[in-house]
């Protein structure tokens, strides 16, 4: 009889914690995640797109009273595909225009199927900016072979 009673109490408590975890996730803006609690161990499952939501869910669950540990079984779902880059000649034009505007005169860009290859060399102080303006041209991917001029 005593063991049944203990079991019942334990079950109730887990259920309360579980509800508290789920409420906390909702309050923190985490959706698509389900929490189950057994013996104070919260198990998170479900699918999210952004890895930071996965870690945020875990951190949120840890803050709930009664949670001893968290098992994070949240899966990452596939991300949508990016907007396809504009056609190669136009993209090459845009990349070179961005490079020119940023004063990256030593850099040259070629484009094939949305993939931009940057070669040449620019002063070290300009390096990050030159890569940045290429990234902001609406490219599919970047093959960066740009060197820092000595």
């Amino acid at each position, binding site marked *: 009889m005593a063991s049944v009673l203990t079991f019942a109490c334990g079950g109730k408590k887990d259920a309360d914690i579980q509800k508290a975890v789920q409420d906390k996730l909702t309050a*923190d*803006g985490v*959706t698509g995640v389900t929490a189950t609690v057994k013996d104070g161990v919260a198990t998170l499952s479900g699918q*999210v*797109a*952004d*890895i*930071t*939501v996965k*870690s*945020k869910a875990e951190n949120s669950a840890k803050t709930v009273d009664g949670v001893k540990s968290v098992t994070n079984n949240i899966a*990452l779902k*596939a*991300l*949508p*595909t*990016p*907007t396809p880059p504009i056609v190669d000649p136009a993209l090459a034009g845009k990349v070179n225009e961005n490079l020119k505007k940023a004063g990256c005169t030593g850099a040259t860009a070629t484009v094939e199927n949305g993939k931009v290859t940057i070669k040449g060399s620019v002063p070290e102080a300009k*390096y*990050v900016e030159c*890569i*940045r303006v290429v*990234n*902001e041209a*609406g*490219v*599919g*991917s*970047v*093959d*960066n072979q740009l060197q*820092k001029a000595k």
Partner: protein
Amino acid sequence: MSVQEKYQSLLELANQNGTTYSLSEADGVLHVDGNAPSEEAKKQIWDEYNRIDPDFRSGDLVLNIAVNAEGTPAGAGGHTYTVEAGDNLTKIGQKYGITWQQIYEANRDILKDPDKIYPGQELKIPIG
């Protein structure tokens, strides 16, 4: 390790410094398109990119961060989202890395009830 795992600290940093972003991926290349609240916030993200992938050689990230106009108050950042069928505030918030409450607060003028939004409605997206 997935590309998202590799750049997780960059995304966490974006969440912390108020940069909103959306993610997409094709052929192992992660695209992060976002809006930073300041040049400084944008620079922090680029510094983190440079730390994770020194000199940006891996070719597995396209980082496209714009800076919201300086002095623009949250909620008027020029970013609007048009509601689609099946959306809810939480879902929209996730796209920008902000909570549904933040969207609700920024749109109190047009939203009476956070559970009632309609396709075609234009919501202001605050800076996170």
